[in-house]
Protein backbone atom coordinates (compact mmCIF):
# COMPACT_ATOMS: atom_id res chain seq x y z
CA UNK A 1 0.00 0.00 0.00
CA UNK A 2 1.04 3.56 -0.61
CA UNK A 3 -0.96 4.71 2.38
CA UNK A 4 0.36 4.84 5.92
CA UNK A 5 1.14 1.64 7.78
CA UNK A 6 -1.12 2.20 10.75
CA UNK A 7 -4.22 4.34 11.02
CA UNK A 8 -4.52 6.16 14.33
CA UNK A 9 -8.23 6.79 14.18
CA UNK A 10 -10.56 3.77 14.25
CA UNK A 11 -12.76 3.83 11.15
CA UNK A 12 -15.92 3.76 13.30
CA UNK A 13 -14.96 6.99 15.09
CA UNK A 14 -14.04 8.65 11.80
CA UNK A 15 -17.42 7.79 10.30
CA UNK A 16 -19.12 8.97 13.51
CA UNK A 17 -17.44 12.40 13.35
CA UNK A 18 -18.06 12.65 9.64
CA UNK A 19 -21.74 11.76 10.13
CA UNK A 20 -22.31 14.15 13.05
CA UNK A 21 -20.70 17.15 11.35
CA UNK A 22 -22.35 16.37 8.05
CA UNK A 23 -25.76 16.48 9.75
CA UNK A 24 -24.78 19.78 11.39
CA UNK A 25 -23.65 21.39 8.09
CA UNK A 26 -26.66 20.17 6.14
CA UNK A 27 -29.04 21.34 8.89
CA UNK A 28 -27.36 24.77 9.03
CA UNK A 29 -27.44 24.96 5.23
CA UNK A 30 -31.17 24.28 5.19
CA UNK A 31 -31.91 26.55 8.18
CA UNK A 32 -29.89 29.53 6.97
CA UNK A 33 -30.97 29.28 3.37
CA UNK A 34 -34.67 28.54 3.91
CA UNK A 35 -35.72 32.14 3.18
CA UNK A 36 -33.64 32.57 0.00
CA UNK A 37 -36.09 33.23 -2.80
CA UNK A 38 -34.32 35.61 -5.17
CA UNK A 39 -31.04 35.48 -7.07
CA UNK A 40 -29.62 38.23 -4.81
CA UNK A 41 -30.55 36.16 -1.73
CA UNK A 42 -29.12 32.90 -3.04
CA UNK A 43 -25.96 34.22 -4.67
CA UNK A 44 -25.12 37.26 -2.52
CA UNK A 45 -26.89 36.65 0.81
CA UNK A 46 -29.04 39.76 0.31
CA UNK A 47 -25.93 42.04 0.05
CA UNK A 48 -25.94 43.00 3.76
CA UNK A 49 -23.51 40.65 5.58
CA UNK A 50 -22.10 42.23 8.79
CA UNK A 51 -18.50 42.52 10.02
CA UNK A 52 -18.31 39.43 12.29
CA UNK A 53 -19.75 37.06 9.70
CA UNK A 54 -17.78 38.77 6.93
CA UNK A 55 -14.44 38.36 8.75
CA UNK A 56 -15.24 34.76 9.68
CA UNK A 57 -16.21 33.75 6.16
CA UNK A 58 -13.11 35.38 4.62
CA UNK A 59 -10.86 33.67 7.12
CA UNK A 60 -12.57 30.28 7.05
CA UNK A 61 -12.53 30.18 3.27
CA UNK A 62 -8.82 31.00 3.20
CA UNK A 63 -8.05 28.33 5.85
CA UNK A 64 -8.16 25.50 3.40
CA UNK A 65 -5.97 22.71 2.07
CA UNK A 66 -3.30 25.42 1.74
CA UNK A 67 -3.08 25.83 5.46
CA UNK A 68 -4.11 22.56 7.02
CA UNK A 69 -2.73 19.97 4.62
CA UNK A 70 -0.39 21.62 2.11
CA UNK A 71 1.37 23.92 4.64
CA UNK A 72 2.87 20.89 6.43
CA UNK A 73 3.75 19.46 3.01
CA UNK A 74 5.71 22.58 2.09
CA UNK A 75 7.35 22.71 5.52
CA UNK A 76 8.49 19.12 4.92
CA UNK A 77 9.75 19.95 1.42
CA UNK A 78 11.05 23.52 1.80
CA UNK A 79 11.67 23.84 5.54
CA UNK A 80 11.56 27.15 7.40
CA UNK A 81 10.89 29.19 4.24
CA UNK A 82 8.10 26.79 3.33
CA UNK A 83 6.21 27.80 6.49
CA UNK A 84 6.99 31.49 6.15
CA UNK A 85 6.06 31.39 2.45
CA UNK A 86 2.67 29.99 3.34
CA UNK A 87 2.10 32.63 6.00
CA UNK A 88 2.69 35.23 3.27
CA UNK A 89 -0.47 33.89 1.64
CA UNK A 90 -2.31 36.29 3.95
CA UNK A 91 -0.86 39.26 2.03
CA UNK A 92 -3.47 38.58 -0.67
CA UNK A 93 -6.32 39.00 1.83
CA UNK A 94 -4.78 42.15 3.32
CA UNK A 95 -4.19 43.76 -0.10
CA UNK A 96 -7.72 42.86 -1.21
CA UNK A 97 -9.13 45.01 1.63
CA UNK A 98 -8.85 48.34 -0.24
CA UNK A 99 -9.90 46.64 -3.50
CA UNK A 100 -13.09 45.30 -1.87
CA UNK A 101 -14.16 48.80 -0.89
CA UNK A 102 -13.53 50.13 -4.39
CA UNK A 103 -15.31 47.18 -6.05
CA UNK A 104 -18.41 47.83 -3.91
CA UNK A 105 -18.36 51.53 -4.82
CA UNK A 106 -17.70 51.09 -8.56
CA UNK A 107 -20.16 48.22 -9.04
CA UNK A 108 -22.94 48.36 -6.43
CA UNK A 109 -25.09 46.02 -8.56
CA UNK A 110 -22.31 43.67 -9.68
CA UNK A 111 -22.50 39.89 -9.34
CA UNK A 112 -19.17 38.35 -10.39
CA UNK A 113 -15.54 39.15 -11.12
CA UNK A 114 -16.43 38.25 -14.73
CA UNK A 115 -18.90 41.19 -14.77
CA UNK A 116 -16.03 43.54 -13.99
CA UNK A 117 -13.69 42.18 -16.67
CA UNK A 118 -16.45 42.25 -19.32
CA UNK A 119 -17.47 45.83 -18.59
CA UNK A 120 -13.92 47.07 -18.08
CA UNK A 121 -12.04 45.32 -20.91
CA UNK A 122 -14.65 43.90 -23.32
CA UNK A 123 -15.78 40.44 -24.43
CA UNK A 124 -12.45 38.97 -25.59
CA UNK A 125 -10.73 39.72 -22.28
CA UNK A 126 -13.84 38.42 -20.49
CA UNK A 127 -13.62 35.05 -22.27
CA UNK A 128 -9.89 34.66 -21.58
CA UNK A 129 -10.55 35.55 -17.94
CA UNK A 130 -13.42 33.03 -17.74
CA UNK A 131 -11.17 30.22 -18.97
CA UNK A 132 -8.54 31.08 -16.35
CA UNK A 133 -11.12 31.47 -13.62
CA UNK A 134 -12.90 28.21 -14.38
CA UNK A 135 -9.67 26.22 -14.56
CA UNK A 136 -8.71 27.69 -11.22
CA UNK A 137 -12.14 27.07 -9.64
CA UNK A 138 -12.16 23.47 -10.78
CA UNK A 139 -8.52 22.95 -9.80
CA UNK A 140 -9.16 24.34 -6.34
CA UNK A 141 -12.21 22.12 -5.94
CA UNK A 142 -10.16 19.09 -7.02
CA UNK A 143 -7.41 19.88 -4.53
CA UNK A 144 -10.02 20.24 -1.78
CA UNK A 145 -11.77 16.99 -2.65
CA UNK A 146 -8.38 15.25 -2.78
CA UNK A 147 -7.46 16.69 0.61
CA UNK A 148 -10.63 15.21 2.10
CA UNK A 149 -9.81 11.77 0.74
CA UNK A 150 -6.12 11.97 1.75
CA UNK A 151 -7.06 13.09 5.27
CA UNK A 152 -9.46 10.25 5.90
CA UNK A 153 -7.06 7.71 4.42
CA UNK A 154 -4.12 9.02 6.48
CA UNK A 155 -5.96 9.13 9.78
CA UNK A 156 -8.51 6.35 9.59
CA UNK A 157 -7.23 4.05 6.84
CA UNK A 158 -10.54 4.49 4.95
CA UNK A 159 -10.10 4.23 1.20
CA UNK A 160 -9.30 7.62 -0.42
CA UNK A 161 -12.13 7.32 -2.94
CA UNK A 162 -14.77 6.59 -0.31
CA UNK A 163 -13.77 9.48 2.00
CA UNK A 164 -13.46 11.94 -0.87
CA UNK A 165 -16.88 10.96 -2.28
CA UNK A 166 -18.64 11.38 1.07
CA UNK A 167 -17.10 14.81 1.77
CA UNK A 168 -17.93 16.13 -1.68
CA UNK A 169 -21.50 14.83 -1.45
CA UNK A 170 -22.10 16.56 1.89
CA UNK A 171 -20.68 19.88 0.69
CA UNK A 172 -22.71 19.84 -2.52
CA UNK A 173 -25.85 19.07 -0.53
CA UNK A 174 -25.69 21.97 1.90
CA UNK A 175 -24.42 24.48 -0.66
CA UNK A 176 -27.39 23.46 -2.79
CA UNK A 177 -29.82 24.02 0.06
CA UNK A 178 -28.78 27.47 1.18
CA UNK A 179 -26.60 29.29 -1.35
CA UNK A 180 -24.13 31.93 -0.13
CA UNK A 181 -26.12 32.65 3.06
CA UNK A 182 -25.63 29.02 4.15
CA UNK A 183 -21.98 29.10 3.10
CA UNK A 184 -21.27 32.22 5.18
CA UNK A 185 -23.24 30.93 8.18
CA UNK A 186 -21.45 27.58 8.26
CA UNK A 187 -18.14 29.37 7.72
CA UNK A 188 -18.69 31.21 11.01
CA UNK A 189 -19.16 27.96 12.95
CA UNK A 190 -16.26 26.34 11.08
CA UNK A 191 -13.91 29.27 11.87
CA UNK A 192 -14.55 28.87 15.60
CA UNK A 193 -13.89 25.11 15.36
CA UNK A 194 -10.68 25.65 13.36
CA UNK A 195 -9.27 28.26 15.75
CA UNK A 196 -10.09 26.33 18.94
CA UNK A 197 -8.76 23.09 17.42
CA UNK A 198 -5.48 24.65 16.30
CA UNK A 199 -4.88 26.29 19.69
CA UNK A 200 -5.36 22.92 21.44
CA UNK A 201 -3.14 21.18 18.89
CA UNK A 202 -0.32 23.74 19.22
CA UNK A 203 -0.46 23.47 23.01
CA UNK A 204 -0.25 19.66 22.84
CA UNK A 205 2.70 19.76 20.41
CA UNK A 206 4.68 22.21 22.52
CA UNK A 207 3.98 20.16 25.66
CA UNK A 208 5.08 16.86 24.11
CA UNK A 209 8.00 17.62 21.75
CA UNK A 210 10.98 19.76 22.59
CA UNK A 211 12.31 22.27 20.06
CA UNK A 212 15.85 21.01 20.79
CA UNK A 213 15.18 17.47 19.65
CA UNK A 214 13.43 18.61 16.50
CA UNK A 215 16.35 20.91 15.67
CA UNK A 216 19.00 18.22 16.21
CA UNK A 217 17.29 15.54 14.10
CA UNK A 218 16.37 17.88 11.25
CA UNK A 219 19.96 19.25 11.16
CA UNK A 220 21.36 15.72 10.96
CA UNK A 221 18.90 14.07 8.56
CA UNK A 222 17.37 16.92 6.49
CA UNK A 223 19.78 19.85 6.85
CA UNK A 224 18.48 21.88 3.91
CA UNK A 225 15.17 22.41 5.70
CA UNK A 226 16.94 24.70 8.19
CA UNK A 227 19.15 26.37 5.57
CA UNK A 228 18.08 29.99 5.10
CA UNK A 229 19.84 29.98 1.71
CA UNK A 230 17.94 26.91 0.41
CA UNK A 231 17.63 27.92 -3.30
CA UNK A 232 14.23 26.39 -4.14
CA UNK A 233 12.77 27.79 -0.91
CA UNK A 234 14.08 31.28 -1.68
CA UNK A 235 12.31 31.13 -5.07
CA UNK A 236 9.16 29.88 -3.35
CA UNK A 237 8.79 32.90 -1.01
CA UNK A 238 7.53 35.52 -3.46
CA UNK A 239 6.03 32.83 -5.67
CA UNK A 240 3.62 31.79 -2.96
CA UNK A 241 2.88 35.39 -2.00
CA UNK A 242 1.96 36.22 -5.60
CA UNK A 243 0.04 32.98 -6.02
CA UNK A 244 -2.11 33.95 -3.01
CA UNK A 245 -2.58 37.48 -4.34
CA UNK A 246 -3.60 36.09 -7.75
CA UNK A 247 -6.04 33.62 -6.22
CA UNK A 248 -7.81 36.27 -4.19
CA UNK A 249 -7.73 39.17 -6.64
CA UNK A 250 -9.29 37.29 -9.53
CA UNK A 251 -11.50 34.68 -7.91
CA UNK A 252 -15.22 35.10 -7.71
CA UNK A 253 -15.05 33.55 -4.23
CA UNK A 254 -13.71 36.90 -2.97
CA UNK A 255 -15.56 39.18 -5.36
CA UNK A 256 -18.92 37.63 -4.47
CA UNK A 257 -18.16 38.40 -0.83
CA UNK A 258 -17.16 41.97 -1.71
CA UNK A 259 -20.62 42.34 -3.30
CA UNK A 260 -22.37 40.50 -0.43
CA UNK A 261 -20.80 42.40 2.49
CA UNK A 262 -22.64 45.47 3.77
CA UNK A 263 -21.39 48.96 2.84
CA UNK A 264 -17.98 49.70 4.44
CA UNK A 265 -17.63 46.14 5.81
CA UNK A 266 -15.44 44.53 3.13
CA UNK A 267 -12.31 46.59 3.75
CA UNK A 268 -12.18 45.93 7.52
CA UNK A 269 -13.27 42.29 7.16
CA UNK A 270 -10.50 41.38 4.68
CA UNK A 271 -7.84 43.21 6.70
CA UNK A 272 -8.80 41.46 9.95
CA UNK A 273 -9.13 38.06 8.26
CA UNK A 274 -5.65 38.43 6.73
CA UNK A 275 -4.00 39.31 10.04
CA UNK A 276 -5.80 36.52 11.92
CA UNK A 277 -4.94 33.98 9.24
CA UNK A 278 -1.17 34.68 9.14
CA UNK A 279 -0.05 32.49 12.12
CA UNK A 280 -2.18 29.49 11.11
CA UNK A 281 0.16 28.01 8.45
CA UNK A 282 3.11 28.43 10.82
CA UNK A 283 1.33 26.32 13.46
CA UNK A 284 0.08 23.80 10.90
CA UNK A 285 3.44 23.62 9.10
CA UNK A 286 5.64 23.37 12.19
CA UNK A 287 4.48 19.90 13.14
CA UNK A 288 5.87 18.49 9.87
CA UNK A 289 9.40 19.29 11.07
CA UNK A 290 8.91 16.80 13.91
CA UNK A 291 8.89 13.95 11.34
CA UNK A 292 12.59 12.93 11.69
CA UNK A 293 12.51 13.21 15.49
CA UNK A 294 9.54 10.87 15.62
CA UNK A 295 10.91 8.46 13.00
CA UNK A 296 7.69 8.61 11.00
CA UNK A 297 7.71 7.35 7.44
CA UNK A 298 5.79 9.66 5.08
CA UNK A 299 4.51 7.75 2.02
CA UNK A 300 3.00 10.85 0.38
CA UNK A 301 4.14 14.41 1.10
CA UNK A 302 0.58 15.68 1.43
CA UNK A 303 -0.16 13.18 4.21
CA UNK A 304 2.46 14.51 6.61
CA UNK A 305 0.25 16.83 8.69
CA UNK A 306 -2.37 14.30 9.78
CA UNK A 307 0.26 11.54 10.11
CA UNK A 308 2.45 13.49 12.54
CA UNK A 309 -0.49 14.80 14.55
CA UNK A 310 -1.97 11.32 14.83
CA UNK A 311 1.35 9.70 15.75
CA UNK A 312 2.30 12.39 18.21
CA UNK A 313 -0.97 13.06 19.90
CA UNK A 314 -2.72 9.73 19.62
CA UNK A 315 -6.46 9.34 19.36
CA UNK A 316 -7.32 12.75 20.86
CA UNK A 317 -4.96 14.54 18.46
CA UNK A 318 -6.29 12.58 15.51
CA UNK A 319 -9.87 13.53 16.42
CA UNK A 320 -8.93 17.22 16.75
CA UNK A 321 -7.05 17.20 13.42
CA UNK A 322 -9.93 15.42 11.75
CA UNK A 323 -12.46 18.00 12.97
CA UNK A 324 -10.21 20.98 12.15
CA UNK A 325 -9.37 19.80 8.65
CA UNK A 326 -12.89 18.62 7.88
CA UNK A 327 -14.21 22.05 8.95
CA UNK A 328 -11.55 23.83 6.90
CA UNK A 329 -12.31 21.71 3.86
CA UNK A 330 -16.05 22.08 4.14
CA UNK A 331 -15.79 25.86 4.55
CA UNK A 332 -13.71 26.09 1.40
CA UNK A 333 -15.46 23.51 -0.79
CA UNK A 334 -18.83 25.18 -0.26
CA UNK A 335 -17.41 28.65 -0.95
CA UNK A 336 -15.65 27.63 -4.16
CA UNK A 337 -18.66 25.63 -5.30
CA UNK A 338 -21.01 28.56 -4.71
CA UNK A 339 -18.72 31.17 -6.29
CA UNK A 340 -17.78 29.03 -9.30
CA UNK A 341 -21.43 28.19 -9.81
CA UNK A 342 -22.24 31.95 -9.76
CA UNK A 343 -19.58 32.57 -12.37
CA UNK A 344 -20.81 29.77 -14.64
CA UNK A 345 -24.43 30.82 -14.15
CA UNK A 346 -23.96 34.55 -14.75
CA UNK A 347 -21.11 34.61 -17.22
CA UNK A 348 -21.61 31.44 -19.25
CA UNK A 349 -25.26 30.38 -18.91
CA UNK A 350 -26.77 33.86 -18.79
CA UNK A 351 -23.94 35.64 -20.58
CA UNK A 352 -23.44 33.28 -23.50
CA UNK A 353 -26.13 30.58 -23.69
CA UNK A 354 -29.46 32.02 -22.46
CA UNK A 355 -29.32 35.82 -22.52
CA UNK A 356 -33.12 36.04 -22.27
CA UNK A 357 -33.33 33.86 -19.12
CA UNK A 358 -35.50 35.30 -16.36
CA UNK A 359 -34.67 35.45 -12.64
CA UNK A 360 -36.39 32.14 -11.78
CA UNK A 361 -34.57 30.29 -14.56
CA UNK A 362 -31.22 31.73 -13.45
CA UNK A 363 -31.96 30.74 -9.84
CA UNK A 364 -32.66 27.12 -10.87
CA UNK A 365 -29.67 27.08 -13.24
CA UNK A 366 -27.40 28.13 -10.35
CA UNK A 367 -28.54 25.10 -8.33
CA UNK A 368 -28.14 22.70 -11.25
CA UNK A 369 -24.64 24.03 -11.91
CA UNK A 370 -23.65 23.36 -8.27
CA UNK A 371 -24.54 19.69 -8.82
CA UNK A 372 -22.75 19.52 -12.19
CA UNK A 373 -19.60 21.12 -10.75
CA UNK A 374 -19.69 18.75 -7.79
CA UNK A 375 -19.98 15.76 -10.13
CA UNK A 376 -17.17 16.88 -12.43
CA UNK A 377 -14.94 17.53 -9.40
CA UNK A 378 -15.73 14.08 -8.01
CA UNK A 379 -14.84 12.40 -11.32
CA UNK A 380 -11.51 14.23 -11.55
CA UNK A 381 -10.70 13.58 -7.88
CA UNK A 382 -11.07 9.84 -8.53
CA UNK A 383 -8.02 10.08 -10.83
CA UNK A 384 -5.89 11.56 -7.99
CA UNK A 385 -3.62 13.63 -10.21
CA UNK A 386 -0.37 14.42 -8.35
CA UNK A 387 -0.04 15.61 -4.77
CA UNK A 388 -2.07 18.43 -3.28
CA UNK A 389 0.83 20.85 -3.42
CA UNK A 390 1.59 20.04 -7.06
CA UNK A 391 -2.06 20.48 -8.11
CA UNK A 392 -2.35 23.77 -6.23
CA UNK A 393 0.87 25.30 -7.47
CA UNK A 394 0.06 24.35 -11.08
CA UNK A 395 -2.84 26.81 -10.83
CA UNK A 396 -0.45 29.59 -9.81
CA UNK A 397 0.59 30.13 -13.43
CA UNK A 398 -3.03 30.87 -14.35
CA UNK A 399 -4.14 33.13 -11.53
CA UNK A 400 -1.00 35.22 -11.12
CA UNK A 401 -1.43 36.47 -14.71
CA UNK A 402 -4.65 38.24 -13.63
CA UNK A 403 -3.15 40.29 -10.77
CA UNK A 404 -2.07 43.34 -12.74
CA UNK A 405 -5.10 43.33 -15.09
CA UNK A 406 -7.41 43.45 -12.05
CA UNK A 407 -5.45 46.12 -10.14
CA UNK A 408 -4.81 48.30 -13.20
CA UNK A 409 -8.45 47.90 -14.21
CA UNK A 410 -9.69 49.07 -10.82
CA UNK A 411 -7.34 52.02 -10.33
CA UNK A 412 -6.13 53.19 -13.76
CA UNK A 413 -8.41 54.85 -16.27
CA UNK A 414 -6.04 54.32 -19.23
CA UNK A 415 -5.23 50.59 -19.06
CA UNK A 416 -5.04 49.04 -22.54
CA UNK A 417 -7.55 46.12 -22.95
CA UNK A 418 -5.42 44.35 -25.58
CA UNK A 419 -2.41 44.64 -23.31
CA UNK A 420 -4.49 42.97 -20.61
CA UNK A 421 -5.45 40.10 -22.91
CA UNK A 422 -1.81 39.58 -23.92
CA UNK A 423 -0.80 39.77 -20.24
CA UNK A 424 -3.23 37.03 -19.21
CA UNK A 425 -2.41 34.72 -22.15
CA UNK A 426 1.39 35.12 -22.20
CA UNK A 427 1.68 35.28 -18.40
CA UNK A 428 -0.13 31.94 -18.13
CA UNK A 429 1.77 30.25 -20.97
CA UNK A 430 5.23 31.32 -19.80
CA UNK A 431 4.30 30.60 -16.18
CA UNK A 432 3.31 27.05 -17.16
CA UNK A 433 6.55 26.62 -19.08
CA UNK A 434 8.48 27.65 -15.94
CA UNK A 435 6.45 25.18 -13.86
CA UNK A 436 7.73 22.30 -15.98
CA UNK A 437 11.18 23.67 -16.91
CA UNK A 438 12.26 24.97 -13.48
CA UNK A 439 9.82 23.90 -10.78
CA UNK A 440 6.43 24.57 -9.16
CA UNK A 441 8.06 27.22 -6.97
CA UNK A 442 8.44 29.78 -9.79
CA UNK A 443 5.25 29.36 -11.88
CA UNK A 444 3.19 32.13 -10.26
CA UNK A 445 6.16 34.47 -9.95
CA UNK A 446 7.06 34.25 -13.64
CA UNK A 447 3.42 34.57 -14.68
CA UNK A 448 2.88 37.69 -12.51
CA UNK A 449 6.11 39.32 -13.72
CA UNK A 450 5.36 38.77 -17.44
CA UNK A 451 1.78 39.94 -17.01
CA UNK A 452 2.81 43.07 -15.09
CA UNK A 453 5.45 44.01 -17.68
CA UNK A 454 2.93 43.69 -20.53
CA UNK A 455 0.24 45.76 -18.78
CA UNK A 456 2.76 48.48 -17.89
CA UNK A 457 4.31 48.68 -21.37
CA UNK A 458 1.05 48.60 -23.37
CA UNK A 459 -0.66 51.12 -21.09
CA UNK A 460 2.32 53.45 -21.33
CA UNK A 461 2.64 53.15 -25.12
CA UNK A 462 -1.04 52.84 -26.12
CA UNK A 463 -3.29 54.25 -23.37
CA UNK A 464 -7.08 53.79 -23.75
CA UNK A 465 -9.55 56.02 -21.96
CA UNK A 466 -12.35 54.53 -19.85
CA UNK A 467 -15.40 55.97 -18.11
CA UNK A 468 -15.90 54.52 -14.61
CA UNK A 469 -19.66 55.04 -14.91
CA UNK A 470 -19.73 52.17 -17.49
CA UNK A 471 -19.13 49.73 -14.62
CA UNK A 472 -22.56 50.52 -13.21
CA UNK A 473 -24.30 48.85 -16.17
CA UNK A 474 -26.15 45.65 -15.32
CA UNK A 475 -27.11 44.18 -18.71
CA UNK A 476 -26.87 40.57 -17.53
CA UNK A 477 -29.19 40.96 -14.57
CA UNK A 478 -31.62 38.07 -14.34
Amino acid at each position, binding site marked *: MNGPETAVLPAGIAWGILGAFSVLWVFLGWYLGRRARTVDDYMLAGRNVGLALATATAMATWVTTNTTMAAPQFA*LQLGIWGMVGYALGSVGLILFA*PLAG*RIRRLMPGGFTSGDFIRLRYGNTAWRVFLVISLIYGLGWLISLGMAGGVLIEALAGIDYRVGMSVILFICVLYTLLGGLRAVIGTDFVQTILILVGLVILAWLVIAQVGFGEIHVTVSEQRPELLNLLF*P*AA*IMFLFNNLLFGVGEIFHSNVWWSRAFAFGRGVGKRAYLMAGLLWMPIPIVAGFIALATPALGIN*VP*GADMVGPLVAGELLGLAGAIIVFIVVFSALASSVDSVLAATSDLVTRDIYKGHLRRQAGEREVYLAAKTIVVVLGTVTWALCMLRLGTLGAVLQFLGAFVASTIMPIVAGL*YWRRTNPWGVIAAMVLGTVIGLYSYFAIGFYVAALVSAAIS*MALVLVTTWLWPRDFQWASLREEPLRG
Partner: protein
Amino acid sequence: MARRALLLLWCLSLLAAPAAMAAPDLRASPERATDGVYRLSWEADGAARFELQESDGAHFNPARTLYTGADTASVITGKPDGEYFYRVRVLGESGPGPWSEPLQVTVQHHSLARALQFFVVGALVFAVLLAVIIRGAREDRDTP
Protein backbone atom coordinates in the same frame (compact mmCIF):
# COMPACT_ATOMS: atom_id res chain seq x y z
CA MET B 1 -3.04 -42.99 -16.60
CA ALA B 2 -0.84 -43.45 -13.51
CA ARG B 3 1.93 -41.44 -15.21
CA ARG B 4 -0.52 -38.60 -15.89
CA ALA B 5 -1.65 -38.64 -12.26
CA LEU B 6 1.97 -38.52 -11.09
CA LEU B 7 2.70 -35.63 -13.46
CA LEU B 8 -0.31 -33.75 -12.13
CA LEU B 9 0.79 -34.34 -8.53
CA TRP B 10 4.27 -33.08 -9.37
CA CYS B 11 2.84 -29.91 -10.93
CA LEU B 12 0.65 -29.32 -7.88
CA SER B 13 3.60 -29.83 -5.56
CA LEU B 14 5.51 -27.17 -7.49
CA LEU B 15 2.66 -24.75 -7.00
CA ALA B 16 2.40 -25.53 -3.28
CA ALA B 17 6.14 -25.16 -2.57
CA PRO B 18 7.17 -21.81 -1.06
CA ALA B 19 8.43 -19.56 -3.84
CA ALA B 20 11.80 -17.91 -3.32
CA MET B 21 11.30 -14.25 -2.29
CA ALA B 22 12.00 -11.90 -5.15
CA ALA B 23 13.75 -8.58 -4.64
CA PRO B 24 11.30 -5.65 -4.72
CA ASP B 25 11.18 -3.30 -7.65
CA LEU B 26 12.50 0.08 -6.37
CA ARG B 27 11.90 3.41 -8.15
CA ALA B 28 12.58 7.09 -7.45
CA SER B 29 10.70 10.12 -8.71
CA PRO B 30 12.54 12.19 -9.77
CA GLU B 31 15.94 10.51 -9.99
CA ARG B 32 17.60 13.92 -10.26
CA ALA B 33 16.24 16.44 -7.75
CA THR B 34 16.87 20.19 -7.84
CA ASP B 35 15.15 20.86 -4.53
CA GLY B 36 16.33 17.88 -2.45
CA VAL B 37 12.87 16.26 -2.61
CA TYR B 38 12.12 12.86 -4.13
CA ARG B 39 9.80 9.95 -3.51
CA LEU B 40 10.97 6.33 -3.32
CA SER B 41 8.40 3.64 -4.02
CA TRP B 42 8.66 -0.11 -4.23
CA GLU B 43 6.52 -3.18 -4.76
CA ALA B 44 6.75 -6.94 -4.41
CA ASP B 45 3.94 -9.46 -4.86
CA GLY B 46 2.40 -10.65 -1.62
CA ALA B 47 5.02 -9.07 0.66
CA ALA B 48 3.82 -7.60 3.96
CA ARG B 49 6.92 -5.86 5.36
CA PHE B 50 9.97 -4.14 3.89
CA GLU B 51 13.31 -2.68 4.92
CA LEU B 52 14.63 0.45 3.17
CA GLN B 53 18.29 1.44 3.42
CA GLU B 54 20.25 4.53 2.39
CA SER B 55 23.97 4.94 1.79
CA ASP B 56 26.48 7.35 0.29
CA GLY B 57 27.93 4.58 -1.90
CA ALA B 58 26.70 1.72 -4.10
CA HIS B 59 28.32 -0.83 -1.77
CA PHE B 60 26.16 0.24 1.19
CA ASN B 61 29.06 0.29 3.57
CA PRO B 62 28.02 1.83 5.87
CA ALA B 63 24.26 1.77 5.34
CA ARG B 64 21.48 3.39 7.34
CA THR B 65 18.05 1.78 7.73
CA LEU B 66 15.50 4.48 6.95
CA TYR B 67 12.35 2.48 7.39
CA THR B 68 11.02 -0.93 8.39
CA GLY B 69 7.32 -1.66 7.92
CA ALA B 70 4.46 -2.22 5.51
CA ASP B 71 4.45 1.11 3.61
CA THR B 72 5.48 0.94 -0.04
CA ALA B 73 6.73 4.51 -0.44
CA SER B 74 8.80 7.10 1.38
CA VAL B 75 9.26 10.81 0.71
CA ILE B 76 12.82 12.07 1.23
CA THR B 77 13.35 15.82 1.71
CA GLY B 78 15.96 18.36 2.82
CA LYS B 79 18.94 16.58 1.25
CA PRO B 80 22.04 18.62 0.38
CA ASP B 81 23.90 18.21 -2.93
CA GLY B 82 25.25 14.68 -3.43
CA GLU B 83 24.70 11.13 -4.68
CA TYR B 84 22.45 8.92 -2.57
CA PHE B 85 21.95 5.16 -2.95
CA TYR B 86 18.90 3.17 -1.84
CA ARG B 87 17.92 -0.47 -1.67
CA VAL B 88 14.93 -2.32 -0.29
CA ARG B 89 14.13 -5.94 0.64
CA VAL B 90 11.18 -8.00 1.79
CA LEU B 91 11.07 -9.07 5.43
CA GLY B 92 9.34 -12.46 5.23
CA GLU B 93 8.29 -14.83 7.98
CA SER B 94 11.21 -17.09 7.07
CA GLY B 95 13.73 -14.24 7.08
CA PRO B 96 14.74 -11.34 4.85
CA GLY B 97 14.74 -11.70 1.06
CA PRO B 98 17.41 -10.44 -1.34
CA TRP B 99 18.14 -6.71 -1.68
CA SER B 100 16.86 -4.85 -4.71
CA GLU B 101 19.35 -3.43 -7.20
CA PRO B 102 20.88 -0.23 -5.73
CA LEU B 103 19.06 2.86 -6.93
CA GLN B 104 21.01 6.08 -7.33
CA VAL B 105 19.44 9.49 -6.78
CA THR B 106 21.32 12.71 -7.53
CA VAL B 107 20.60 15.92 -5.66
CA GLN B 108 21.88 19.09 -7.27
CA HIS B 109 20.19 22.23 -6.03
CA HIS B 110 19.59 25.28 -8.19
CA SER B 111 22.45 27.75 -7.87
CA LEU B 112 22.04 30.44 -5.24
CA ALA B 113 22.58 33.12 -7.90
CA ARG B 114 19.61 31.81 -9.87
CA ALA B 115 17.45 31.65 -6.75
CA LEU B 116 18.34 35.24 -5.83
CA GLN B 117 17.46 36.43 -9.34
CA PHE B 118 13.94 35.06 -8.91
CA PHE B 119 13.80 36.56 -5.43
CA VAL B 120 14.67 40.02 -6.77
CA VAL B 121 12.11 39.75 -9.60
CA GLY B 122 9.46 38.69 -7.05
CA ALA B 123 10.34 41.57 -4.72
CA LEU B 124 10.15 44.03 -7.62
CA VAL B 125 6.73 42.78 -8.79
CA PHE B 126 5.45 42.98 -5.22
CA ALA B 127 6.83 46.51 -4.71
CA VAL B 128 5.18 47.79 -7.92
CA LEU B 129 1.89 46.12 -6.96
CA LEU B 130 2.00 47.65 -3.51
CA ALA B 131 2.76 51.10 -4.91
CA VAL B 132 -0.17 50.93 -7.39
CA ILE B 133 -2.62 49.82 -4.70
CA ILE B 134 -1.49 52.34 -2.06
CA ARG B 135 -1.58 55.22 -4.53
CA GLY B 136 -4.94 54.07 -5.94
CA ALA B 137 -6.46 53.68 -2.48
CA ARG B 138 -5.24 57.14 -1.46
CA GLU B 139 -6.77 58.73 -4.58
CA ASP B 140 -9.94 56.68 -4.04
CA ARG B 141 -10.21 58.00 -0.47
CA ASP B 142 -9.70 61.60 -1.58
CA THR B 143 -12.35 61.34 -4.32
CA PRO B 144 -15.77 62.39 -3.00
